[in-house]
């Protein structure tokens, strides 16, 4: 029994030992695994650390990239703006601009070029300029010298010959002036050519008008010069005393005509050049009108003309250049006397008019003083009425009555009134008479003295007509 128990115990011990051994092995294995795990963990930790660093680096790069991207987009925007600005500048240039590359193909065609030639940008870009833009000489309609090719060939700026016409898309012709300038990179290589051209129709017209003015002006001087030359020839040949006086008188009159023409021409050029200095001073316009009429009293008496004067006030102070106003009034007045028959009637009338008021179909533009000079003379023929303010124009009936007019009087009247902000118009019927109206703006009168203003308000409240006849 005991033996049995001992054996059992021995077996148990053996089993236990075995178990212990097994356990030890397992433990060892576990320890191994643990160790490996530790190593792995360590490795992992290391990797993690590395990843972190990389991630950080990447983040930095990303950030940098983002900044760069932002910068780039800003730059792009800036660039876009610059391009748009440049485009806008090119488009807004008042002259037509066309640029072509060195082969002559059009790269740029601005808005004004489109407008002037009638070709759209699409029709032109990429084509050879010679196939689109045609310039001809005004004299013979032959193609003008290819100044664009010349500019590219010589590398020098070239200008188009004078009197060149541009043929537009619709075939019509426009006088143009222009230049071609080669385009170069900074190191000097030729890129192409930029051509600038503009419509000079207006300049041409002005130029023509100026030449005509000179031609007509010298023609005006030829007649009195001829008169002087022929009468002095008669005098030198010798004539009787009576004739002698008559001839000297003719010479004197012709010379006076020359002097008048020269003075008139000088006044015109002064007005046109704008060097007519305006010397605005307060003057009593009513006294001024009366005085102007009085100065012509002799001519009025000679022709036995009755003149009626009607003024809105006994006196009215306005700020104006007296000399300029004298030229206006005396021109109109002496015209009336000239073309009114012996025993005829004239009238001079003054009146204050308000803005938007209508006087003889003419709307008053601002508060003004209106002067009216009328006569029952020969009148202005209907077909001449739109031309009477034109320089040197004289109607047939005026020419047949008075051959010595210059055709400059009404032109001067209009020029002066334009200059001082006034206005002139007329009503006329042939063989019935003419009424000239002119206005002087009253807005400058605000600087009048207190007393003067009061008196003018008073007189406006109680308007009366001051009449005087001879």
């Amino acid at each position, binding site marked *: 029994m005991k033996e049995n128990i001992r054996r059992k115990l021995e077996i148990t011990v053996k089993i236990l030992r075995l178990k212990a051994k097994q356990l030890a092995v397992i433990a060892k294995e576990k320890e191994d695994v643990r160790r490996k795990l530790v190593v792995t963990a360590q490795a992992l930790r290391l990797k993690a650390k590395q990843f972190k660093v990389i991630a950080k680096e990447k983040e930095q790069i990303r950030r940098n990239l983002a900044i760069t991207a932002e910068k780039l987009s800003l730059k792009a925007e800036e660039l876009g703006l610059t391009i748009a600005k440049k485009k806008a500048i090119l488009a807004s240039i008042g002259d037509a601009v066309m640029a072509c590359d060195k082969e002559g193909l059009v790269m740029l065609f601005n808005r004004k070029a489109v407008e002037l030639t009638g070709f759209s940008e699409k029709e032109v870009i990429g084509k050879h300029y010679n196939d689109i833009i045609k310039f001809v000489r005004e004299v013979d309609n032959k193609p003008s010298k290819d100044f664009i090719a010349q500019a590219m060939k010589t590398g020098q700026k070239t200008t188009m010959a004078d009197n060149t016409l541009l043929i537009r898309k619709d075939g019509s012709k426009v006088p143009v002036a222009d230049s071609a300038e080669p385009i170069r990179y900074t190191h000097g290589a030729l890129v192409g050519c930029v051509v600038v051209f503009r419509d000079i129709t207006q300049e041409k017209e002005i130029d023509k008008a100026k030449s005509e003015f000179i031609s007509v002006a010298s023609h005006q001087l030829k007649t009195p010069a001829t008169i002087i030359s022929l009468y002095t*020839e*008669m005098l030198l040949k010798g004539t009787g005393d009576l004739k002698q006086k008559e001839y000297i008188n003719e010479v004197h009159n012709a010379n006076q005509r020359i002097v008048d023409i020269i003075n008139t021409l000088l006044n015109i050029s002064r007005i046109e050049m704008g060097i007519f200095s305006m010397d605005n001073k307060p003057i009593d316009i009513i006294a001024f009108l009366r005085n102007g009429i009085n100065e012509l009293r002799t001519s009025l008496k000679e022709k036995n003309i009755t003149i009626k004067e009607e003024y809105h006030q006994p006196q009215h102070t306005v700020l104006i250049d007296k000399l300029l106003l004298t030229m206006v009034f005396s021109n109109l007045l002496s015209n009336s006397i000239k073309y009114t028959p012996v025993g005829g009637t004239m009238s001079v009338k003054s009146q204050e008019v308000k803005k938007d008021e209508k006087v003889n179909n003419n709307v008053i533009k601002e508060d003004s003083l209106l002067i009216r000079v009328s006569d029952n003379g020969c009148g202005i023929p209907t077909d001449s009425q739109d031309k009477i303010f034109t320089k040197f124009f004289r109607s047939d009936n005026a020419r047949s009555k008075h051959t010595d007019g210059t055709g400059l009087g009404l032109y001067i009247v209009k020029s002066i009134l334009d200059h001082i902000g006034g206005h002139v118009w007329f009503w006329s019927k042939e063989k019935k008479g003419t009424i000239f109206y002119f206005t002087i703006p009253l807005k400058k009168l605000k600087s009048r003295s207190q007393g003067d203003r009061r008196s003018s308000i008073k007189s406006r409240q109680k308007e009366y007509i001051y009449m005087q006849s001879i």
Partner: protein
Amino acid sequence: MRFPIPPLLIIMINDKKQTILIVEDELPLLKVYADRFSDEGFLVLKANNGQEGLDLAIKEKPDLILLDILMPIMDGLTMMQKLRENTTWGKTVPIMLLTNLSADEKKIKKIVNENGPAYYLVKLDWSLSAIIEKAKMAVSSH
């Protein structure tokens, strides 16, 4: 007893006064041309414009016409053309065109050449005595 007729009188009898028509709108010029031509023994007719000139020419048939160009109502060139076209007498009367017109000279010269016998004189360049000489020549060669 018969008296021989003095030679001068023969000339006066045979050679009746030449008539000149002056058409000019500038009165001082009209007067000085007229005075000088009467001094030279011409019978002078005066008109102030082309229309008056045409009427007077057709009525009086002068031997010579002194004609201004730039005139109101009817200018000298028109008057000349009307005279040449519409009357048989007018086709051959010598016309001296007087002007100070400087532009369109080509056009005027062309019309003058087509309407002979006609002469084109620039006022400022021609003295009275030169005009008289030219007028006498024009009348005698007619």
